């Protein structure tokens, strides 16, 4: 086992452990902070996969924006940050079985695929992935349409979200 593989296993354990904390912890702020740990672990995976742009974007977008929005939302919708009652539905053990079945099914499907234990060729050190991504995002015979549609999607999300959450006549969230 090489040092890289040991490092990968540690990162994987951190990701899965913190993900479990996200779905089980009582305190929602803690859940959001554990989510940040998970997301950071995923960013490390991207770095191992030589996708530096995505690794950095993962930190900027998820930790810098989405997690902050989550924490704001938790603080807006809670009069008491700590929740005393049970956080899981009564039939949670059924959901454990469903999740395990999904995991087993996915694994069974994947291991029957012949590319499952493929290894990667060495990454050419002079390969400019960011520049290639820029060209792919903007050239008409590649992905310019999804790129512009993503922009329109974000615009629609902004308009919709602000329309839903924002009511100029009520002013603030006081009941």
């Amino acid at each position, binding site marked *: 086992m090489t040092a890289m593989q040991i490092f*990968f296993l540690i990162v994987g354990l951190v*990701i899965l452990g913190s993900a479990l904390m996200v*779905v089980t912890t009582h305190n929602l702020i803690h859940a959001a902070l554990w989510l940040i740990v998970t997301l950071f672990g995923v960013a490390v995976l991207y770095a191992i996969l030589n996708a530096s742009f995505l690794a950095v974007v993962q930190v900027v977008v998820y930790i810098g924006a989405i997690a902050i929005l989550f924490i704001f939302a938790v603080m807006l919708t809670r009069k008491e940050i700590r929740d005393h009652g049970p956080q899981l539905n009564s039939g949670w053990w059924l959901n454990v079985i469903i999740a395990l079945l*999904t995991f087993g099914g996915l694994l069974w499907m*994947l*291991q029957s695929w012949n590319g499952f234990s*493929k290894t990667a060729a060495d990454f050419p050190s002079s390969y400019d992935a960011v520049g290639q*991504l820029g060209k792919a995002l903007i050239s008409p015979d590649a*992905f310019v349409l999804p790129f512009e549609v993503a922009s329109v999607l974000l615009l629609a999300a902004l308009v919709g979200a602000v329309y839903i959450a924002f009511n100029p006549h*009520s002013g603030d969230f006081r009941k």
Partner: protein
Amino acid sequence: MIPLSWYLIISAALFSIGLFGVLSRKNAVAILLGIELMLNAANINLVSFWRYGDISQMAGQVFAVIVFAVAASEVAVGLALVISVYRRRNTVIADDLDLMKW
């Protein structure tokens, strides 16, 4: 080197954990946290397929970028809905929102 299977197993496990969170959490914000985990699992797959396939084909990375945009939109609209519901019904427990249920 690390085989592709390791990434796929981690991503499948992350997806299942996210699914469990979505199914069993009571709080609507926590359900959205579970959805974030599932989207990240999908993204790990996309990027590892890019790396283990032909790296001159940027489709994997481009789709990962699109997933970022989708995740951001989903969070923006989802949390806005939760907050709107909270203002009208004073609750964020998904089970209490049963107006559409018979």
